[in-house]
């Protein structure tokens, strides 16, 4: 227990650093996924292309992506920006699919009703389709947030400090408690962000009886692509 008592400051500092690295990829990824998901939802051809590409990017192991990206982007491999770009790619890979699926799940009758009462496609998207797709999009956002928090720790291997520092440092110094603290704090940060998103979603989308979707969401398997071109 000694180690923890003497290093509370360090743990707190690393936790903040961890949050600082986790939040930008989640937000930027979310913003990028909306147009991409819309394009995938709207056009059959781009759907296959975009979602396959997203699936392939998500397949690449994190450490490999951290190493490959700089030679394409020109960003230093050891910089925080490199990690941010890599994690944004993963976040987009998860969320573009969930945005597309979410928009697919909006009842076509509702879409047609909105058109019938005179909504243009821009206004219809933001005021009808997007809010109705919200709960499913939120489920994707939560998955992306949790996996981003967990992946940030890998950055320590290329020298970007986060709670992952406790893993390598604890390993070198043979302090089990230090690594355990790192693992537990990562879990806490992930679950905290997840809760914030869930509660935020409830407040922003009071119309969503999202319990049903959320129940099913965590069990989806990456390969089980639902192709609800025309929901029954």
């Amino acid at each position: 227990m000694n180690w923890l008592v003497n290093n509370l400051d360090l743990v707190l500092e690393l936790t903040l650093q961890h949050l600082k690295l986790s939040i930008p990829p989640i937000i930027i990824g979310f913003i990028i996924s909306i147009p991409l998901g819309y394009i995938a939802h709207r056009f059959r051809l781009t759907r296959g292309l975009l979602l396959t590409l997203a699936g392939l990017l998500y397949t690449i192991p994190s450490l490999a992506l951290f190493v490959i990206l700089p030679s394409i982007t020109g960003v230093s491999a050891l910089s925080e920006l490199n990690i941010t770009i890599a994690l944004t790619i993963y976040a987009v890979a998860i969320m573009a699919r969930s945005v597309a699926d979410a928009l697919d799940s909006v009842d076509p009758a509702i879409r047609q009703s909105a058109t019938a009462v005179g909504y243009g496609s821009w206004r219809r998207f933001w005021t009808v389709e997007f809010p109705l797709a919200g709960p499913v999009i939120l489920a994707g956002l939560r998955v992306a947030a949790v996996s981003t928090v967990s992946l940030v720790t890998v950055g320590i291997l290329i020298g970007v400090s986060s709670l992952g520092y406790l893993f390598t440092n604890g390993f070198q110094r043979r302090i089990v408690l230090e690594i355990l603290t790192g693992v537990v704090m990562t879990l806490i940060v992930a679950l905290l962000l997840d809760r914030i998103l869930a509660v935020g979603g409830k407040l922003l989308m009071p119309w969503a009886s999202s319990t049903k979707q959320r129940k099913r969401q965590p069990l989806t398997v990456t390969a089980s692509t639902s192709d609800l071109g025309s929901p029954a």
Partner: protein
Amino acid sequence: MNLFQQAFAWLFDPARLEGTSAIPARLGEHLVFTFFAVLIAAVIAVPLGYFIGHTGKGREVAIALSGAARALPSFGLILLLVLVIGVLHKEVAAYIAFVILAIPSILAGAYAGLEATDRRTIDSARAVGMTEWQILWKVEIPLGLPLLMGGLRSATLQVVATATLAAYIGLGGLGGYIITGLANRDFPQMLGAALIIAALALVLDGLFALAQQLVVPRGVGAGRTTDVRTRSSRSSAVAEASAK
């Protein structure tokens, strides 16, 4: 010479085929870790997933488990287990970590495969006199195979990625090149190794995609079994039945 050319020069250097750190040897280690970890995880998770899927018991636990597993930092888990179990048994520790990380996806695949089976199909099987055991083996399992394969696919990719990180504890595998490359600031080696690891993941993913197509039982309409992600056919069958 740009970095990619240097990386390819490193990859195709004849020296990469010699000694204990030859690429084929490292690739072999990586594949062995992946294969056995996924195998052990499947032996544990498939029967459990089938039990949950068939009986509907323990569903909440399975969901909580797969949610928590996503938040678990794999690198931390390996290092933690190595210290707890002992540095001398690092291989055992790494395998335990791989299996722990592989179980949730396989469990979800096995479970979701049964859950996705149309309730009416199961009722029909029961109506023609099949026993519970026959329903499981002849109806639910074959229909759920594509989703199980999807679970194995995620688990495999998870282990390939985690085995890369395990090189940090000196376990071998392809990640070793990246770790030593980092220590020596040898970027061509790091990039070359990262490209093989990415290629390995993509090839395995492709093979599983193919296998997923192959295990769809004949007679199942295209798209039928994939239609589980956003809708539960069980609940919709119930809803239809109650609407009548």
